């Protein structure tokens, strides 16, 4: 029945008067309830296997990461340009020379060279990658972070389940789900959680006195005006105060890490964000997305990819090594994703590569995935997928499956349309160890 309640909650997300939806439910509830019961019975992929991954660190390369110049190199091909391939600590896995640190971590990584999308514009591609659905004007779909929070809940009740560090104005991914499942946004990874400490000059006793006065005010207000929402606000103050006093707040504070560790990840926003993500996982945050922009290499592709890769290489290699050293890698999945690849043909006049959704590369590491393997293949010039195609919903289904999210479970939007975590995607089972 919990599911039914959740569905109801989803219905009244935007109208705080839940009854609004209830009368509506009176008309439409029966078919819905029965279909829910049905889907729970069928249950599908998710429930039978033991999920290994508990948390996800999702590194998103915004703008479209060139596949040829990173993890799908084509030594000797004309389309490769000047980029050399190097050997790694995984047999038969070659990667670009731009990733010397990652070369020492590839034994932990499953490379998917056969990613396929049909969305060639940034916003649409990004949306598809995050939600498994095409962007529509009529509904916003939740992204993987929100779905994870929704289906799996919090690991640590004192912290949010879903966090997004850095990134675009694309929103917080909650889609039609309640805002509690949307990501908590963190702009600058080094400045901690906004407003979580007492302002300068406010002592704890003064704060306590203020809170006392607020409670007094609210008591009087509540005598006449008392709704679920006004009570929820009162509770939210309790929660916020708890968070302010919480030991877990340290999770957001990079000053708790020594300088050597901070340097190891790279002294740049992306590197520090990766370090923060590791800390958040340690403290029980379910899903952390880190958005790294600037991969849209229409012009001077090689310069740009090289400089972007240097940052990524250092941070991701440090992250994988660190997680492994702490024994966290098995339960923590690290994803490297992007909306599409870049055209194999190098545009002469500006040395650039354009958008290329029909073949690109993403990585999965930890969380129960096999390491040191490559899945799928593109042709000798990196143009077409010749083996093991993984469409975007399949990729997301793979992540969801690893987390133990039931892929068949339908969740209803406020307009009562059913949606699933990865639409019709099927997990790539051969990637699981």
């Amino acid at each position, binding site marked *: 029945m919990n599911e039914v309640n959740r569905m109801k909650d989803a219905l009244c997300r935007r109208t705080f008067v839940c009854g609004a939806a209830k009368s509506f439910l009176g*008309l439409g509830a029966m078919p819905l309830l029965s279909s829910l019961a049905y889907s729970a019975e069928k249950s599908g992929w998710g429930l039978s296997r033991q999920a290994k991954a508990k948390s996800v660190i999702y590194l998103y390369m915004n703008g479209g990461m060139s596949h040829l110049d990173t993890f799908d190199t084509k030594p000797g091909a004309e389309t490769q340009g000047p980029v050399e391939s190097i050997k790694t600590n995984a047999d038969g896995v070659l990667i670009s020379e731009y990733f010397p640190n990652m070369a020492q971590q590839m034994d932990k990584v499953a490379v998917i060279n056969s990613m396929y999308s049909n969305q060639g514009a940034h916003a649409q591609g990004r949306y598809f990658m995050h939600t498994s659905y095409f962007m529509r004007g009529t509904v916003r779909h939740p992204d993987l972070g929100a779905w994870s929070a929704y289906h799996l809940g919090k690991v640590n009740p004192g912290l949010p389940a879903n966090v997004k560090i850095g990134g675009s104005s694309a*929103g917080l991914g909650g889609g039609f789900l309640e*805002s509690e499942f949307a990501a908590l946004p963190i*702009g600058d990874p080094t400045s901690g959680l*906004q407003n979580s400490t007492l302002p300068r000059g406010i002592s704890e006793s003064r704060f306590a006195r203020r809170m006392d006065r607020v409670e007094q005010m609210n008591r009087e207000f509540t005598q006449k*005006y008392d*709704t*679920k929402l006004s009570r929820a606000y009162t509770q*939210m103050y309790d929660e916020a105060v708890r968070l302010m006093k919480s030991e877990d707040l340290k999770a957001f504070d990079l000053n708790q890490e020594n300088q050597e560790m901070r340097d190891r990840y790279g002294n740049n926003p992306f590197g520090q964000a990766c370090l923060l993500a590791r800390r958040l996982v340690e403290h029980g945050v379910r899903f952390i997305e880190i958005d790294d922009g600037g991969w849209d290499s229409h012009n001077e592709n090689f310069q740009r990819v090289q400089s972007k890769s240097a940052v990524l290489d250092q941070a991701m290699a440090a992250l994988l090594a660190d997680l492994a050293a702490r024994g966290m890698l098995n339960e923590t999945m690290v994803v490297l994703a992007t909306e599409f690849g870049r055209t194999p043909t190098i545009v002469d006049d500006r040395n650039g590569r354009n958008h290329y959704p029909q073949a690109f590369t993403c990585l999965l590491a930890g969380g129960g995935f096999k390491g040191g393997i490559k899945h799928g293949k593109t042709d000798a010039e990196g143009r077409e997928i010749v083996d093991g195609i993984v469409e975007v919903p399949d990729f997301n289904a793979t992540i969801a499956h690893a987390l133990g999210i039931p892929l068949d479970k339908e969740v209803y939007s406020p307009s009562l349309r059913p949606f699933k975590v990865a639409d019709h995607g099927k997990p790539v089972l051969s990637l699981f160890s």
Partner: protein
Amino acid sequence: MDSERLRASPIYPYSHACWIRRCCGLVELILIDPRSGRIEYNVNILPDFFASLNSASFLMANDFMGLNSTDLKCCFAVSRHALILSLVVGILISLCNESTAWCSTLANAENAPLAWLDATPKADTSETEEQPEANSTSHNLSSVSATDRSQILAISHQIDLFIEAQLAKHDQQANPLASDEVFVRRIYLDAIGRIPTLKETTRFLNSNSSNKRAELIDELLDSYGYVSHQYNYFADLLRAKSRLQNAVAGQPYIDFIKDSLETNKPYDQFVHELIASEGLLIERGNGAVGYYLRDLGMPEDNMSNTVRVFLGTRLECAQCHNHPFDKWTQRQYFEMVAFTGGISYRDRSTSQNPNQAARLMRDGSLSPTERQVIQRMVRNLQTGVSGSGTGLARLPEGFLGEDGEEFEIIKAQIMFGDQPEMNPRIPREITNERTRQRLGRRQQQIPNAREIGSRELLANWLVDADNPRFATVIANRMWKQTMGLGLIEPVDIIEDNTIASNPELMDYLANSMIALDFDLKQFLRAIFNSQTYQSEAFGKDINNPAEFYFNGPVMRRMAAEQIWDSMLTLVFEEVDQRVVPELDRQLRLFGIEAADIYEVYETLREMSADEIVDLAKKVASGGRGMRAMGRPAATRGDQDRRALIAQRDRLDVAIRRAKRANEPGLLETLEERRLDLQVAIDKLPIQNRGAFIRASELPSPAPPSHFLREFGQSDREEIENANSEPSVMQVLSLMNGFVEQRIVNSSNAIVLKNVERSKSDREKIDTVFLSMLNRYPTESELAVWQADLDANPRETVADLIWTLINSNEFIFVK
């Protein structure tokens, strides 16, 4: 109405009952069908009319239908025919033939004019001569004519009658009238989107005018705050964004909405323009095309949105299959889409120059930055809407219905009502296989379709007063906006069997909307003037909106924009002005100095392709100021601001000196000057656009981590995507962030300045309460804070401000 009780009454079995009530100087006459209990007819009659009558005879039935006895009621039997033609004259004269006590108390003017509002469906209001000018601007609207006013008040009053009748039926009472303190806060928030300032609060509370509520309502509806507040609502509804796809400026769309509100454009005309407009987006006056550009490349989604926003019905399910809960089929859906068939998101009227510039752009000699600049210019010079509509659409691949085949070309058909006359012609399909394959990627296109103006026909049908849904939906939305809950909930899932919680009132409001020619301002004026709106709020959970009868408006959390704007009210003077004054309208884009963005593109349009490319080169090589794209660069406003701030700082020194020298007279003069100066500074443009200006003037939507977004401002991705749910981040921001930094610790915050001027502790406490909660403190509150002030004079004012903002009473509108 309670038909059981009606049947038991002495007048049954006469065919109709009439119910008369007098209140607020008006007399209502309502005709009720005793079988259905439905109100069939009602009129409002100005009392002046009765003055010309000398008597009345009717059956008094004070307890009739359990209505409360302060009202005067009568019921009588008439034939339906008699009523239709001679309702006002015949019936009332016969009614009032014998004088009664109440009739004689009415006004005594002779031959007073009769003003009445016909509220039957399909009322032909064009015959009423005193209709307000449909297009009158906000400036001259402030003088609501006497006749308009009586029409408005008649509606207000009628609303109360319907509410009372239904409450009585359910043995409930209306809440008592809200106090002036409660009212002043609520009306400011509902009419102009922020709490009143200290000055505004005390001015209202101290006013002795017997008509002060109505006067305040008029004043607020005529201020720019009204535009700001309503814009926030429509920006959420219409997903207005500052940046459209491909970095095209969204400003014209936003301006269209604001300008329409500012001139109080009738809502039906506003919607008609959204649906039927064509032209280049960036050309002045064409902003309405933003409505289609918002769903660029997705005409199907756009149609779903149109139906949802304006007709309150969901069609999006039928986009992929027949609607599972409603009657709509997938074919019907595409028949609707066909009205916008052939739409193109480029403006055809544009000169060829931008196209040529785009071709030149591919020239290898141009640098990436130069190309980017050209692209930005060209896209804005090309984006628009053209195509008046072919009235044709293609069924989609994998069409599921039995009433068509995939890729079949179908003709436009409206969902309900009379089909508009039109004659779409289905062109012959291309038979050449190669050509077909080439077109395969764009299967939805229909080559050689003729334009027949179907978009205009769609718009005509949509906003027609005979379209039963259009007026109902906007009336219900406005009701919800002000009363906190719709008469129909949800407001945009209306189906055939949907029944409003008060069907008579819903019908009446829809008809009033039509009678008022879709003048939203007048409609709101009518709601605001009702006793129902002015009653104390209902502050309990409502489990079933269908069973809530509006004892008063529903308590709700302020919208994100209301919270933000209210915060600003505590910090700055004069926050309502359309923040970019003339001085700041100077903007520099691509190195072109202009009054606004339209002027920039007018200049660009005049340029040849070569000139565009040359300019782009110059812009690309220039400094940041040159490159600033779409952002106003530093202008004269900045220098003025700095000069004024320097002046203020000098005054501060003088003030400190005067304080030390203990010269109260001089001090007062100086402080007054300082205040004036501060007002002038606050009025000046703030170049940092992340700054503290009203939500409606900030980028739409505000960036994801902005205060506004934290409090649930819509991301403008989905229709009505704002929410008022609590979150830890909000609370943290109120406790430790914004309030502390911007109000409590900002010596320039108006609320602190007002406290500084207070002469006693009592006055200080009053000032904070009046500034923030717009009421005086209670005795016990006064005692608590007085004690705190005694114990700790330095910290208490800050603590009081902090406490009030963090209390539920601040964030909830009661």
